[in-house]
């Protein structure tokens, strides 16, 4: 069944899969550059940690043109606070999905902050 996936380098957010063994796992969550929409059965995964780049071991945070790399394991809200930003001013998208900010971030996740404050009164 399914294709055999042998991913040596860019394994992003794969920890869940390793813990659960050989399960059906949406390959889209493995992200760029292995992003396809169909489901593939993961049969074996070889992760070469030595070859992982920092991006794959950390969480990438972006806000407009700004970028940060932060340690995984914190919630989105904690990450925002650790960057000295106010969580009230942003929405959080994790790997392209809008989510409430209590979500805990894994290595390889992309947290995109969407600023919500606008100039306001000038719309009238």
């Amino acid at each position, binding site marked *: 069944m399914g294709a055999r996936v042998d991913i040596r380098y860019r394994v992003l957010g794969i920890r869940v899969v390793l813990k659960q063994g050989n399960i059906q796992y949406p390959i889209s969550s493995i992200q760029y550059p292995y992003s396809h929409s169909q489901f593939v059965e993961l049969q074996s995964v070889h992760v070469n940690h030595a070859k992982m780049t920092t991006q794959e071991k950390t969480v990438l945070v972006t806000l407009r043109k700004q970028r940060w790399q932060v340690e995984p394991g914190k919630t989105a809200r904690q990450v925002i606070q650790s960057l000295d930003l*106010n969580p009230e001013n942003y929405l959080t998208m994790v790997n392209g999905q809008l*989510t*409430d900010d209590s*979500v805990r971030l894994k290595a390889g996740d992309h947290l995109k902050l969407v600023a919500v404050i*606008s100039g306001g009164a*000038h*719309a009238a």
Partner: protein
Amino acid sequence: MPRKCRKCQRPAVINMRQHKLALCADHFQEWVVNQTERFIKKYRMFTHDDRVLVAVSGGKDSLALWDVLLQLGYQVDGLYLGLGIDGGFGYSDESRAMCQAFAEKHPETTLHVLDIPTTYGESIPEMAARTRRGKGKPCSVCGLVKRHEMNRIAHDLGYHVLATGHNLDDEVAVLFQNTLNWQVGYLARQAPVLPESPGFARKVKPFCRFYERETATYAIVRGIDYVYDECPFAEGATTIYYKELLNRLEADKPGAKLHFYLAFLKARETLFAHWQEEHVELHPCENCGQPTSAPGLCTFCRLLPEEVRPRVRHAQPIMVKSML
């Protein structure tokens, strides 16, 4: 895992700490639509018999409002004013494109577009520079032009109600500013509904109880494309500064903004129960007919060069309608 939706246990897209309510994308959309209907009725904004014109800027709030009012089945159309602002990324062009794209997806509604530079020969920043109003920022001229033109167009096209996408953060920022300065006259007039008066449409703010993060969330979950970049002149605006300040308070005390606004609306009833607007005699403007306090020309017509003034009497927006 993120929080779970209170209604269906799926992952929440938003947690509204002031309501202690986390919802998934579907239940959040439903909640926004129902709440808007509730506010429209509570503040007696309009009914299904009224023709409503929404002032759209291409931003999240106004497009989300247009979308919600359509879902609720109101007779609602959009009005976009092209201001001729570029800011290095074609701000006005982009915002107009967003409004048109929205209109094209909704055959049941019409977008009216009036381009200020093509109509009156000058962009808003050019008008501001020529008349030297506003210390390098065109915002006061911009506000004046928008107020006049929205009123005029609503009146000419037979809309009784003018709706704007002001959210709670906009309202509390203004409230905070007016309180710091004790602008009693402004406080007396700050409300979800400004009644109609001869020559002026009723003005309503159906989103006045939603936080800005909620209108943004709504736009995203509904897949509405909006201009994410601000008008270049909004940078450094005092409203933004107050919004950030109030959000710091909100982060420590969830619900502080909502409470400030609702408690004000309540206090307003007693504070201003006997408030009398200073009686000003209004006269029709000699050029455009819109009521104005000083005899002669209204402030908008005074802003225009003499040879351009007659255009105010005939300028009509163009209509954008979906061919779907």
